[in-house]
């Protein structure tokens, strides 16, 4: 909770100790409990979306199985890895702050920030591809003809024009130099071509999946942005040398927030990208 009054009240002798606390320990415990309660509200906020997801997945399983193939497992997985790394750097940053290693702290915060940028960058690529193929929510769901074939080429901006490539091969371009065996990508490709040949198999109300996909990842994205602001602010305070003397509460709390953002993605990834 960045608003927690950790800053020293002007007249105080003990630096960073607000007037209404008896000891730094008490102040630290209070701040920490406050942050955890804030995380509780975040969990319930997303809880609502998970509820919507559960209800619609159980009522329209075919929609979810069909539509999730339009998401790019590779990019999703990549983002998961990025977030996990950012969690590591963040946790390490807390350690650095506790050990008063200001330089390391600054570096690790910067690293975390860069990871966050990477995550958003990849999300942008994914969103852009969805937009291009009209894979949107509600009435805006207007998939271009045979989206199926192009879907795995979601990451077109990263790959050479996918048109000539057999369906599905596009997916691995992003990671592998040569087009070829990316099981996930291929699986998707075959399934889709199979479908696009007889449209009878395409379930109705596919837009529901994309509505939920955009709401969930969108809200999560907003939280990533908020996290970046928070980390940036911590970074500045570090450069100002505010965390040099063993005072690290803000870093600790910022870390908790960032890990929660990671936690939520850990569930979003399999639920949205890896439906079987």
């Amino acid at each position, binding site marked *: *909770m960045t*608003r*927690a*009054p950790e800053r020293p009240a002007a007249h105080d002798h003990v630096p960073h100790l*607000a*007037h*209404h*606390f008896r000891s730094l320990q*008490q102040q630290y*415990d*209070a701040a920490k*409990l*406050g942050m955890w*309660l*804030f995380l*509780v*509200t*975040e*969990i*319930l*906020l*997303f*809880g*609502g*979306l998970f*509820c*919507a997801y559960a*209800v*619609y997945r159980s*009522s329209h399983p075919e929609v979810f199985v069909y539509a999730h193939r339009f998401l790019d497992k590779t990019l999703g997985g990549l983002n998961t890895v990025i977030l996990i790394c950012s969690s590591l750097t963040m946790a390490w940053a807390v350690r650095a702050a506790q050990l008063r290693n200001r330089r390391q702290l600054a570096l690790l915060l910067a690293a975390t920030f860069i990871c966050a940028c990477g995550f958003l960058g990849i999300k942008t690529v994914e969103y852009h591809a969805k937009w291009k193929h009209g894979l949107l*929510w*509600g*009435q*805006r769901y207007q998939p271009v003809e045979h989206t199926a074939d192009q879907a795995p080429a979601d990451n077109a901006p990263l790959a050479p024009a996918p048109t000539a490539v057999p369906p599905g091969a596009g997916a691995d371009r992003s990671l592998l130099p040569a087009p070829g065996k990316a099981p996930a990508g291929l699986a998707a490709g075959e399934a889709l071509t199979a479908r696009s040949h007889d449209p009878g198999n395409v379930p*109705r*109300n596919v*837009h*529901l999946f994309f*509505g*939920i996909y*955009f*709401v969930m990842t969108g*809200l999560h994205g907003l939280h990533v942005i908020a996290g970046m602001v928070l980390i940036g602010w911590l970074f500045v305070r570090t450069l100002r040398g505010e965390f040099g003397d063993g005072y690290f509460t803000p870093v600790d709390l910022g870390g908790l927030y960032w890990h929660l953002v990671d936690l939520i993605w850990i569930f979003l990834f399999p639920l949205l990208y890896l439906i079987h």
Partner: protein
Amino acid sequence: MTAHQPAPAPHPGASLHGGGAVNYLNAAPGLRSWLTTLDHKRIGIMYLISILASFLLGGVFAMLIRTELLTPGRTIMSAQQYNQMFTLHGAIMIFLFIVPGIPAALGNFVLPLMLGAKDVAFPRLNLASWYFWLAGALCLLFSLLFGAADTGWTFYTPYSTTTNTHVVATTLGVFILGFSSVFTGLNFIVTIHKLRPKSMTWFRMPLMVWALYATAIIQVLATPVLAVTLLLLIVERTMGVGIFDPALGGDPVLFQHFFWFYSHPAVYIMILPAMGVISEIISPFSRKHIFGYKAIAYSSVAIAGLSFLVWGHHMFTSGQSPLANMIFSALTFAVAIPSAVKVFNWLATMYKGSLRLDTPMLYVLSFLFLFGIGGLTGLFLGSLATDIHLHDTYFVVAHFHYVMVGGTLIAFLAGLHYWWPKMFGRMYSEKWGRISALLVFVGFNLTFFPQFVMGSQGMPRRYYNYLERYRVYHEMSTAGAYLMAIAFMIIAVYLAHSLVKGRLAPANPWGSATLEWETGSPPPVENFLGEPQPGDPYDFSALVYDPALQGYRDAKEQA
């Protein structure tokens, strides 16, 4: 007990203007010092002023609604305006007034004092929550000026997604108000856990604190779900993400699950602090130790827990499955029990006491009467067979108002009169206090009791027009509403008058044993001049009445 106080008379900070003693009111002059204050007492007062303003606004809407309903068909406004009126009346009264009413205004002021703490855990967050309240209120005002939502405060889809009024502005306002509510609750939980002096153990906490604790738990756990519900509603209206809109394949009944998962616990956010106030007042005014302290404390927490298991009783006719209907009906009755326990304990507290029937106590008595009716009529609505008939009729409207106005508002008035001397260091006119308390009681029953009857006779709620056969009930109801309005005006007048002309208040006018009465009226900026000594909050044996002070003081202390 009050050893830390400088010798009484003139009392520490007993006076508002100068008079020597420095207190939280005169410590720092100027509007700016208020708008930037981190003092929980000042923030409490700011909240008090704001919520009273919104109560006035919501009250005006209520009077307009009752006037419109005086006759069937058009009386003073169009159907569209009427629909916006009752929507705003509901939204303003619930989200701007009742929810923050007791916790954020009275609670903010007394909680740290009762605990013997210097402030709440996060003073800045506390101030922020007030500014969030302000932002939310402004959003609602904006929507009010530019075509307010006509959806009812429940925002049911698909009506709320299709109507062409400013639903987004209204829901955004409520969304922002959610933050202020969450921040208050979060702050209180941490304060209660971390800021108590060593000697203030859990079971020495005043019951008001227990009530605020239970309330805060609900605020933190339930409000985010309302937030996400409103977010989904907003993206539905602005971008057409059809999660709740059947036209887009969405499920409107799911919206009702979302909405009531917050909004049922929310009614306990509204009533629990009220129960706390009652426990706080009934004991000193009976000069008796509260009966069954632990039972009352635990029942608050029990209500908080159970409140999350009963939301479906708002959906018995909505197409919810019979299975869920059964589960929710059964659980609903479970909530009745802790509430009953509290009532019996309050009655037992009065037994063999010496009852001082001053204004706060009169409100407590009318609370017992009105909340009794409100609670018992809840049985009709919890029971499946009868709810099918009564759901969405005036019976529900009456029940809701008996609990929320007869319960919460009355308790709020009780608390306001009880803590008024502590807040402003002045006594109000006891005579007018009692008269208006009686007027409120009579006016309230006249307004809402007929609504039970017309409800069970079939009059649906949210009706602009109605059949002739319901007319007489509506006329009674409107008459009562005017009577209540008069009573509220009287209250406003004598309270305002007391601020300037009122007799200076002693530190402990009622002879209460909770800590806030150990410090001056009004309290100093630091709350306590010495280290407060928490004891049994309902043991009055150490207190004696001192005519010189016109208040109570510690028996051991020299007058």
